[in-house]
């Protein structure tokens, strides 16, 4: 079969291949004349002279000229070097499986051309549509006069513009470009033993020239000096964090004795603000108290008889009002979902469930510890205040956390 264009390609390529090699061959030959390993070294070095940037196949190219200049053998006689030839030879083309309608019928080919052109035209229209929409369509996002169509329209035109080119190119390739099955030989992956040995020798020779193996003082001081460079960034790393009083920071929150419980909006809470079964997010009434990530707490009111008070915590609650840390002891999500009937507190992140009427014991999920409780009392004005900080660090566990 072979389309004419394919053949032309191949022939032209072959011609350039031989013509283009000679200068490089000479250049690299001169460069490596001092090398002990002779021709093999020549071969190993020339890729470096050849390849630039992303040319990963420099070796093939140089291998070929090596073959031409240094060896009179037939390429196929030398199994190893066959790769260089096969590699730079243009791929052979195989037969078309079955001729497509476009290959035999000019009308079908014209139809394909029209389809591709229509797709390219669609692309052009998409671009125009995109530009017009972008520049002229109303774009105001107040909820009332917000143009719901602006982004969808942009997207549709953009998809038209990009999709037209894309689909056009694919149809073009599939229906009009030669349906070839080109064959290309692979080159073997490993180098032959000579080449490997020469490389090893070159490395070893170079290393010997540095005299490093026999000058132990030099070697040891180099190891010490270069090795200690690894220490340089360590202090910089620690500069990234503020570690002063790390443990204390982790173990304490914004709550102190006498600090009022306030809502997110800053108002203090008294016992009339909550019905039985009610819940309120509370924060310490300190500067930026509502922004402190570890101080968020939950004020829950239940019937005093529902509350199972732990030994030692008798004075921590006030008439069925209890306060727990809102920070999950698992991974620190705010535990905010409260089931009134069962008194369950539920963390939406990993489904840890705590019993609010029983010291916030964990009854389900990956959390290991109960939510810490905040002891509260009522100040003279009737507002809730903290008796102190939480009795244990709030939030997730960490290594230094006392058991």
């Amino acid at each position: 079969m072979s389309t004419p264009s394919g053949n032309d390609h191949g022939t032209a390529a072959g011609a350039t291949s031989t013509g283009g090699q000679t200068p490089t061959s000479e250049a690299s030959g001169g460069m490596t004349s001092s090398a002990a390993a002779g021709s093999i070294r020549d071969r190993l070095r020339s890729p470096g002279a050849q390849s630039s940037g992303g040319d990963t196949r420099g070796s093939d190219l140089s291998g070929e000229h090596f073959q031409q200049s240094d060896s009179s053998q037939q390429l196929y006689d030398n199994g190893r070097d066959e790769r260089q030839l096969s590699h730079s030879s243009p791929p052979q083309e195989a037969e078309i499986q079955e001729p497509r309608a476009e290959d035999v019928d000019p009308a079908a080919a014209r139809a394909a051309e029209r389809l591709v052109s229509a797709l390219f035209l669609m692309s052009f229209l998409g671009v125009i549509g995109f530009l017009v929409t972008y520049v002229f369509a109303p774009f105001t996002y107040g909820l009332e006069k917000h143009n719901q169509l602006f982004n969808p329209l942009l997207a549709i035109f953009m998809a038209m513009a990009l999709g037209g080119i894309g689909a056009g190119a694919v149809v073009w390739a599939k229906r009009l470009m030669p349906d070839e099955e080109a064959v290309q030989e692979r080159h073997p992956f490993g180098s032959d033993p000579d080449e490997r040995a020469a490389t090893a020798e070159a490395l070893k020779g170079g290393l010997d020239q540095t005299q490093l193996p026999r000058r132990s003082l030099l070697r040891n001081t180099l190891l010490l000096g270069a090795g200690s460079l690894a220490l340089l960034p360590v202090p910089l790393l620690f500069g990234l964090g503020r570690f002063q009083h790390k443990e204390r920071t982790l173990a304490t929150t914004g709550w102190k004795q006498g600090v009022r419980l306030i809502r997110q909006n800053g108002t203090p809470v008294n016992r009339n603000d909550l019905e039985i079964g009610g819940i309120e997010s509370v924060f310490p009434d300190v500067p930026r108290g509502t922004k402190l990530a570890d101080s968020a707490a939950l004020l829950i009111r239940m019937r005093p008889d529902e509350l199972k008070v732990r030994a030692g915590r008798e004075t921590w609650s006030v008439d069925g009002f209890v306060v727990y840390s809102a920070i999950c002891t698992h991974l620190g999500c705010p535990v905010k979902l409260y089931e009134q009937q069962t008194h369950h507190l539920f963390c939406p992140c990993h489904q840890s469930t705590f019993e609010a009427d029983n010291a916030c014991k964990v009854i389900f999920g990956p959390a290991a510890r109960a939510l810490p409780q905040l002891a509260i009392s009522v100040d003279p004005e009737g507002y809730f205040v903290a008796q102190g900080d939480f009795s244990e660090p709030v939030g997730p566990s960490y290594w230094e956390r006392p058991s």
Partner: protein
Amino acid sequence: MSLLEKGADSTGRWVDDRLGSSNFVRRSLNKVFPDHWSFMLGEICLYTFIILLLTGTYLTFFYDPSVREVIYNGSYVPLKGITMSQAYASSLDISFDVRGGLLMRQIHHWAALLFMASIVVHLMRVFFTGAFRKPREMNWVIGALLLILGILEGFAGYSLPDDLLSGTGLRIAYSIAMSIPVVGTWVAFIVFGGEYPGDSILERLYAVHILLVPGAILGLITFHLMMIWYQKHTQFAGPGRTEENVIGSRLFPAYAAKAGGFFFLVFAALAALGGLVQINPVWLYGPYDPSQVSAGSQPDWYVGFLDGSTRLMPNWELRAFDHTLSFNVLVPTVVMPGIIFTLLIVYPWLESRFSGDRAYHNLLDRPRDVPVRTAIGAMSLSFYVLLLIAGGNDIVAHIFRVSINTMTYTLRAAIFIVPPLVYVATKRFCLSLQRSDEELVHHGIESGTIRRLPSGEFVEETVPLPVAHHIQLTGVESDRPELQGATAHGQAGQAKGPGYGDTHVLDAETGSRGAVSDGPDSHGTTSHGRGSDLGLTGGSAGNGAAAGGSHASAGHQPTTRRKSRGFFYEKPAPRSTAADAPVERELENTVD
């Protein structure tokens, strides 16, 4: 010569005078790429990454990673007057006050989701077809690193808008870092600049997200592609396709047109998604507030498996000697992914260790032909999918109206029970598929005709498989003797030792290697064809020869390397029923 040609000619001359690039360019243009739909998966990864770079760069012009508090006064009415971080406000501005900003942001997010999805699917393709085998182990490792970097990059990007959802994710990340034994709090403080939330994490994540990780990804992708370029792409078995060649279309023009067109198609699909399908509506979540959270908090899908393992883990914690070791955090988020990704990275070496296969492979396996690997893959996949389901267990429980507790207990059991079952089932399935292939190859296609022999015996007539199909089923490297003569590779294939790196090149020296085979049956055909020369032009003679070859050598069972690899390449036990026997005889008769 037209003006255009003249211009191209002089430009080419100019460049070549300076770089001597003709040879390289020509060889590149002629490079052959094999064709298969599954090879496009890796292309999607590359294209989505390019789209991520383009849209991401646009977003950097408007995004501000500062946590400085501002009062929002943009176009989105419901949040007007609310105190929020500058980062969140700028995310809102991109969505509502930058023309086309929302489109770009949503394309970016969709592209990130697709990037990760295509990496995972591409990884599955490479795994199940054995494309990671020697000499491509390095590219497998790079691919695995890209997967890990992709997860990091995605998580960093997800955290930048500083909305309620992403802030919750950051807090979880901080808590995970804290759980690491001995150095945990130091690590967490170094990353976050102090106790959570600190005021520098967004700026740091921003540098990581737009510079550090994308730079690493870009470098690794470059290396990934250079290795594909140099080692050439793998291919599936087919007529004329051998371990030593690659058959497909050349880079220029057909492959370039198809691949380039495909880039624009991917971009078009993402553009349509970005404008028509809402993703991550940060304005609905509200600004981050450490005391707030919404029900149904979900990470992006590629982090879902870690969330799932965290949800399933029992609440084990060790408290002793004034220290706390939280297995409930450490195991599912540090230990388990550590093990998973280590196994993923070293898998090529594990497989070659256990299968004893040290050979070069350029032809891909059909998954069924390597039942153990396929079963391992399916087992791992089922484990992953279960974790992913667990990551959304609240959503699943809500949709199917089961209790979240039942859901969790069930999944805890399933994570141990299901993967082994999947392993066994997949292996059985592969062996059955092999058996049915074997039947097709030996027995042929059922024609529905029953013939009565002179002796009175009834036999079913079968039609031999078309050669192309036959080769697809048996594979060039297969140990099935009927392959002999069916491919251009001919007998050289049978003589092969552990790898053509050693033995085969010797073959080449005798001149039998290469595209033109001197196999017994391919004389008179032009070797590199698909179908046409081997199957169709050869016609019945070719088929007959192939079938004949099969029976000629069926007796002596050649020793092949696959046989020596033990359990890894398990084959179904030969099933010789009485019914098969006459058919074989009949076939032999017709051939002879």
